[in-house]
C-alpha cells in the first residue's frame, strides 16, 4: 500500500516546497513537452542534468525515487523489448531466427527508457513537493481562462480536490478491510488467475459500499452547511507568486534555450 510514490506528498523544506504550485505545474508541463522533442544524446544529457538538480533540491533520499520507478519497471521493460524487436534499419547487431536487433533499434530503446524515467521522475518531484489540495487549487487557477467559454472550472476543481482528499482515506480503509478479510483467511497470492480475481470481491465490495456511504455523508454535510456553488470559495491557503517562482522561471527558460540550442547540434 505504501510503496506507491507517484501522487504521494512527502513533507519537506526548500525552494521546491516554497514555490507556487502553479509554477511547478507549468515547469513540469514545459519540461515534459520539450522532452518529447529530444533527439540526441546531448539533449537527453541536458535534460537529465536539469532533473538531477531538481531532485537534489527536494532534499529527499534517492530511495524514495527508486521506489517511485520500481512499480513501473515492467512497463518500461515491455516498451524497450518492443523497440528492440520492431525497429528496422542497419547495421544489424544481433540476429536469431526472425528476431533481429539493429543499432538504431538499440539506440531508440535506450532513448525510450531515458525519456520514460525522466518524465516519471519529474512528475514525482511535483507530487512529492506539493500537497494534493495545492495541486487542485493551482489547476483551478490555471484553468480560469476557460471560464470564458462556460467550462465550470470551480466545480471541476472542487471535484478534484475532494477526490484527492479521499485518496488517503481510501488507502486507510483498504488497509483495514484487507486486514479484516485476511483474518478470515483471505489469500490473494495463491491460486489461478480466475481464483485470485474472485478473491478480491470481499475487499472491493466493502470498499465500494464504504466510499459510497462517505460520499453521501459528505454531500449531506455540505448541504446542511449551506453549500450552493463552488464559485468564489475562500481558501485556507492562498496562492502567491514570489521570488522563488521568478527564479524557477529563469531556470526553466535557461533549460529550454539550452535544450533548443543543443537539439540543432547534430
Amino acid at each position, binding site marked *: 500500500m*505504501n*510503496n506507491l510514490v507517484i501522487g504521494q506528498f*512527502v513533507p519537506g523544506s526548500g525552494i521546491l516546497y516554497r514555490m507556487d504550485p502553479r509554477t511547478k505545474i507549468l515547469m513540469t508541463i514545459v519540461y515534459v513537452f520539450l522532452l518529447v522533442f529530444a533527439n540526441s544524446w546531448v539533449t537527453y544529457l541536458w535534460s537529465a542534468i536539469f532533473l538531477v538538480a531538481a531532485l537534489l533540491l527536494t532534499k529527499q*533520499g534517492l*530511495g*524514495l525515487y527508486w*521506489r517511485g520507478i520500481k512499480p513501473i519497471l515492467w512497463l518500461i521493460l515491455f516498451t524497450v523489448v518492443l523497440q528492440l524487436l520492431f525497429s528496422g534499419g542497419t547495421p544489424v547487431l544481433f540476429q536469431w531466427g526472425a528476431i533481429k536487433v539493429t543499432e538504431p533499434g538499440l539506440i531508440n530503446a535506450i532513448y525510450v527508457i531515458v525519456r520514460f524515467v525522466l518524465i516519471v521522475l519529474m512528475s514525482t518531484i511535483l507530487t512529492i513537493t506539493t500537497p494534493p489540495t495545492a495541486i487542485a487549487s493551482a489547476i483551478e487557477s490555471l484553468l480560469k481562462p476557460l471560464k470564458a467559454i462556460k467550462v465550470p472550472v470551480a466545480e471541476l476543481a472542487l471535484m478534484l480536490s475532494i477526490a484527492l482528499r479521499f485518496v488517503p482515506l481510501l488507502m486507510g*480503509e483498504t488497509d*483495514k*478491510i484487507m*486486514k*479484516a*478479510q*485476511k*483474518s*478470515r*483467511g*483471505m*489469500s490473494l*497470492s*495463491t491460486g489461478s488467475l480466475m481464483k485470485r480475481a474472485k478473491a478480491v*470481491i*470481499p*475487499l472491493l*465490495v*466493502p470498499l465500494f*459500499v*464504504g466510499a459510497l456511504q462517505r460520499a453521501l455523508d459528505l454531500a449531506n454535510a455540505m448541504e446542511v452547511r449551506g453549500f450552493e456553488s463552488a464559485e468564489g470559495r475562500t481558501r485556507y491557503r492562498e496562492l502567491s507568486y514570489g521570488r522563488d517562482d521568478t527564479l524557477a522561471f529563469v531556470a526553466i527558460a535557461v533549460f529550454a534555450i539550452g535544450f533548443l540550442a543543443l537539439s540543432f547540434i547534430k
Partner: protein
Amino acid sequence: MVINIEGLDFAYGAGKQTVPVLKNINLTFPEGQITAIIGQTGSGKSTLVQQLNALLKPTAGEVHIGDHTVTNKTKEKALTPIRAEVGMVFQFPESQLFAPTVIEDVMYGPKNFGATDEEAKQAAEKALAKVGFDTSLYDQSPFNLSGGQMRRVALAGVLAMNPQTMVFDEPAAGLDPQGQAELLDLLRTLRDEGKTIVLISHQMEQVLALANQVVVMKDGQVAAHEPVEELFARPQSWFADQHLDLPETIAFQKEMEKQGFVFDHLAKTVDDLAKQLAGQLDSAKLTGQRSDQAGSQAQTGGPHHE
C-alpha cells in the same frame, strides 16, 4: 494455546521513512484467560494485537503463537494458518461485510480454511445463534440490517471459524448499553468455553468486570502487566500519569479510603461496594469512633463481607 511475545520491536513503513511504534515488548497471554489491553489513544494497542495473528510481522524479536513462530523473515504463506487459530474482531467490524446474504458472509471464513459447504453452513448457523441473530434474517442482504445486527453478523463471521484465541479491538464502540451488556456476556461465554481472549477497551468498567490480567500500554511500551486486582490497587496518581480513568466504583472507594475508610477488597460492582460500605458504617456506629478517629479505625479495618 499460549501466545508469547519475546523482545518485540515494531515500526511501520520501510526504508528511511520508518515510524517506530512498539519497543521491547515481552508478554505472555495465558490460555483460557481474558487479558485486557488499555492505554491512551496512539499508545500502540491496535498495533500490538495485530502481531497476535500475524497481520503485522515484528521488525525485531519473535512472536510464538501455539506451534508457530513469527519473525521478520516468516513467509506470507506460512501466516494464513495462524489466522485460523487466532480470530480478530476489529473496531466497527461491520465494515467487512460483503456477501449477498448474511449466511454466506458468515460462511466465508470457515470455507477459506477448508470447510465444505455443509460444514461451513453448520458453523455459521451455530455462530449466528451464539450472537443471538434472528434465524429469519439469514437470507437477507447484510446491507439492509441495522447497525447492531450488522455488528452481530460480523462477530459471527469470526466466531464461525472457531478460533482457539479471539482478539477484540474495542468491540463495544458505538453499541447501546443493552448491546454492550450482551457483548460482555458473549465474552464470558467464550471464556467459559476455554477460549483465550484479548480485549482492547477504553471502558474501565468493562476491564474490571471481565479481565483476569491487564496490560497497560504507554508510548509503545508495556507500562504494567499484572492481575486486574493488583492494577486497580495502584494509587490514583499513577492512573493520572497514564492518562487513564479509574472505574467509578474504584474511584469512589479510593476517595472513601482518603476519608479513613478501609476496604478489604476492591469493589468490582456497585452492589459489592455498597455492601462493604454498609459494613463499615455498621461497625462505626457500634464503636462510635467513626467521626473523630478515622485514622485509628483504618488500622483495625471493618468487618469482612465476601
